[in-house]
């Protein structure tokens, strides 16, 4: 694959390796494959959901090949199935994908890829590759972890998307098989590890209230976008409360911010 070749050409730029690597390559590969395979298999749920939502085989596979960030893909097909405006649907998927920019920022320092390799590596910047890469002790292991996770996950995710879409066509009525529950379950599984503190729980609760109350009133797709306002709203209220409590708590937001920056994935479970 193009990504592989390009990433390898940058290896020379890495700092000199210690005589004995901090972590054996085989251990890095094992961790990376564990995550890549477990999460890659869930492309099956996406393929089924997308086909069940009425997207063609080509459209379903194009999403996994070109978008390659699960939550955004599920959000897009869900919004399209509901009959929303295509750009409103894309906006929801896009906002979910914005978190990848912050993963990229942290990976950039760890991986140290050249400018020529970055356009290829960028496609693999997602929750799972970030989690594996940031868990490595040095640059060599980080690059290996990123590449192996990215490659195994990309290959499997696309393969299982295809199988899922074909399978859904064979199954016929996907709702009779309960497959319409796969998408909200995926969202819930992605959300659960993010609900670390009160701030996240309040934002999640407010978002649910916003979407449920506006759903019958606003055009399809708009309520989900509106619910995103729960995030800045909660931050504003939290900022006010911190200021009201005085400057004694100055360290809390910073420590909190760092904690939030970690990717929320299933790494340890996978």
């Amino acid at each position, binding site marked *: 694959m193009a990504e592989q070749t390009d990433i390898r050409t940058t290896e020379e730029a890495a700092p000199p390796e210690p005589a004995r690597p901090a972590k054996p390559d085989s251990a890095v590969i094992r961790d990376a494959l564990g995550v890549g395979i477990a999460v890659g298999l869930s492309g099956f749920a996406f393929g089924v959901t997308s086909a069940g939502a009425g997207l063609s085989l080509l459209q379903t596979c*194009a999403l996994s090949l070109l978008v390659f960030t699960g939550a955004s893909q599920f959000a*897009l097909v869900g919004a399209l199935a509901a009959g929303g405006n295509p750009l409103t649907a*894309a906006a929801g998927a896009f906002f979910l994908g914005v978190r990848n920019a912050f993963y990229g920022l942290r990976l950039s320092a760890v991986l140290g890829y050249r400018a020529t390799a970055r356009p290829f590596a960028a496609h693999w910047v997602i929750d799972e590759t970030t989690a594996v890469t940031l868990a490595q002790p040095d640059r060599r292991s980080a690059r290996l972890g990123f590449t192996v996770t990215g490659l195994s996950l990309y290959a499997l995710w696309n393969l299982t998307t295809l199988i899922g879409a074909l399978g859904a066509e064979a199954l016929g009525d996907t709702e009779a098989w309960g497959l*319409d529950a796969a998408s909200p379950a995926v969202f819930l*599984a992605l959300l659960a590890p993010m609900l670390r503190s009160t701030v996240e729980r309040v934002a*999640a609760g407010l978002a649910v209230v916003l979407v449920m109350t506006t759903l019958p009133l606003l055009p399809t797709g708009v309520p989900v976008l509106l619910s995103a306002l729960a995030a800045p709203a909660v931050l504003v209220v939290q900022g006010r409360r911190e200021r009201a409590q005085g400057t004694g708590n100055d360290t809390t937001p910073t420590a909190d*911010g760092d904690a*939030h920056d970690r990717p929320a994935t299933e790494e340890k479970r996978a």
Partner: protein
Amino acid sequence: MNVWIAIAATAVGCYLVKYLGLSAPAGVLERPLVKRLAALLPVALLAALTAQQTFSDGHHLMLDAKAAGVAAAAVALVLRAPFLLVVGVAVAVTAGVRALGG
């Protein structure tokens, strides 16, 4: 055609934010407020999407077998089940409740 427009817009947008993050000079996106907003945005969106897809058809509120399936997924998550099992439980319980006429 509309579907292809949505796919193209999502693909371009999602790729650009990934590339932007990987290529931006360190410090550009490092302001604490920006980081916290970026961390909280997916929390709000995922919560809204979970609720919407569980309790509605996209426009009308409704309660059906899916709610039981997603509730079972929540229990599986509390019990620290792996990702695939969580999704599998949701599907199986939804199908089961529907088969029983729920």
